[in-house]
């Protein structure tokens, strides 16, 4: 079944066309990779899907309804979560509270319940705390639950960001360079973790990545962007030998 369908998505910053006429259909459970040189419009694509920018043209149909023009927090509620290229945690909050903020998206109590400490507030808070704690255990972050997020080592911050995104219970997970800044061993562990996440949480994933090793091993399908336009699409093997892709990354071959 088609979870996400993007039709003719175009976005301009002034005169610059960051994304032009982007089309894609993503089926449920798929892991799609988006690659391309720096400035190709990959992150802009994520920002368009999640509502940070409002698309100049086109539609983003998520489970049949158009996301264009919706507020970012509403889009999260509908089931789209993301991580960031440069980690963006709530630095002063504890590791646990980082996840609880995300879990709170689905909390079923109002401001009055909280102010008067009504039973519904207590119930929802304790179940939310428990869920968040379980998620931290799943990601082996539970021993840091009460540590401020800014004190976590880099690799764990990446992992926490992934846990936080999953706490919103997404159907579509957008990962913006999850392997950036990780060493080879950490990348391997991230790949294992992602495989487990796919098995357990079964999200559909779109991922931006520069690490070719990562992309070639993880993704079933790739989409290559350059200067906002799609230049190639297909299996990792096909992409690897596509002359257009080689040209975008390495430049045109010139006669000696």
């Amino acid at each position, binding site marked *: 079944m088609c979870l996400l369908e993007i039709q003719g998505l175009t976005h301009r910053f002034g005169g610059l066309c960051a994304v032009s006429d982007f089309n894609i259909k993503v089926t449920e459970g798929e892991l799609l990779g988006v690659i391309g040189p720096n400035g190709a419009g990959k992150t802009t694509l994520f920002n368009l899907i*999640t509502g*940070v920018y409002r698309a100049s043209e086109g539609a983003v149909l998520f489970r049949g309804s158009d996301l264009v023009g919706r*507020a*970012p*927090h509403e889009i*999260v*509620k509908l089931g789209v*979560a*993301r991580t*960031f290229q440069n980690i*963006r*945690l*709530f*630095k*002063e*909050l504890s590791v646990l*509270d980082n996840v*609880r*903020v*995300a879990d*709170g*998206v689905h*909390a079923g*109590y109002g*401001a009055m319940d*909280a*102010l*008067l*400490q009504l039973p519904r*507030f*207590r119930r929802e*808070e*304790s179940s*939310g*705390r428990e869920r968040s*704690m379980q998620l931290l255990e799943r990601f082996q972050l*539970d021993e840091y*639950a*009460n540590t401020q997020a800014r004190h976590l080592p880099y690799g764990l911050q990446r992992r926490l960001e992934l846990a*936080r*995104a999953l706490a*919103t219970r997404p159907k579509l997970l957008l990962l913006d360079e999850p392997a950036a800044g990780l060493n080879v061993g950490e990348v391997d562990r991230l790949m294992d973790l992602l495989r487990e996440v796919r098995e357990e949480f079964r999200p559909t994933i779109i991922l931006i990545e520069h690490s070719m090793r990562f992309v070639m091993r993880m993704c079933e399908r790739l989409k290559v962007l350059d200067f906002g336009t799609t230049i190639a699409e297909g299996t990792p093997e096909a992409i690897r030998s596509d002359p257009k892709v080689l040209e975008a990354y390495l430049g045109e071959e010139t006669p000696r």
Partner: protein
Amino acid sequence: MSTPKLHAPSHRHRKGMLPALLAGGLAASYLLPYFGVLSPYVQLILISVGVNIILTSSLNLVNGYMGEFSVGHAGFMAVGAYGAAVLSVNVLPYGAAAPWLFPLAIVAGGLAAALLGCVVALLSFKTRGDYLAIVTLAFLMIVKSTLENLDVVGGARGFLGIEKLTTLPWVVAWSVATIWVIRNLVHSRYGRDIQAVRDDEIAANQTGVDTRRAKVLAFSVSSFFAGVAGGLLAHHLQFINPRMFDIAKSTDMLVMVYLGGIGSLGGSILGATIYTLLLEALRPLGAFRMMLMPLMLVLLMLFRPRGIMGMREFSWLLPACDRDAREAAASDVDKDGKA
């Protein structure tokens, strides 16, 4: 994680103690002056400590928990003071009924301030940081000059003839209510949303936080209690004028917030108490105390930039479930230490 049951006895012991302590404090604040144990001078100081606690903890919601730098708190206070005073002098009846209708006037003043707080919150959708600080400064100046030119409330001469309705028990009750409301808010998803906005607004929004709602909530609750403090002060001094609510007043509150510690209600209580008592104790120094206090602030910023309590909290100020979690975590550390 160790089982919370392990800590049940100590926790239950403390659970009953806080309400008992508060009830005792409230009763004492009524009975001690009644039997003449507290001198009027001490009562006066306690009232200003209480009013300052309300101001500091409410300002901390915006400056500490949400990470904005509002310098307009005195403006909200002015709106509450004038709102409550106008209501109690011109609308509510004098005489025997007045003390009973007094909370109504205070709440009305608070609501008027909260309404303006919402307006500032709307402006904060578009601007943040230094620029929002300028907006709050402008707001403060607008409030002050409006009051100075409003003849119905006495203009620059001030507003006279306010009945003395603020008593020590009222101040204690309102201080406790302020701390209670802000504590419950901060330790709920609404409070976590507010703190998430402080740490990273875009990430918060992309994690499902309605950042606009968080801002409106923080500014309206914060300004409501600033208004309450204003109303209490008006009915304590029995006279208010626009000059009392200038930038210097806001600065006082900022000093108390940053002295006690940002993002901590315990810090706000400490900051307000220490600052108020110290200013009073240093009175014999005359003009020199106004040099000593800023010097203290400089030293504080150098050696403890986050204030006495910065981002930490007394465990008795935490809701029960958070307290359990903290104790469990602490006992885990103990066990690890022994092992």
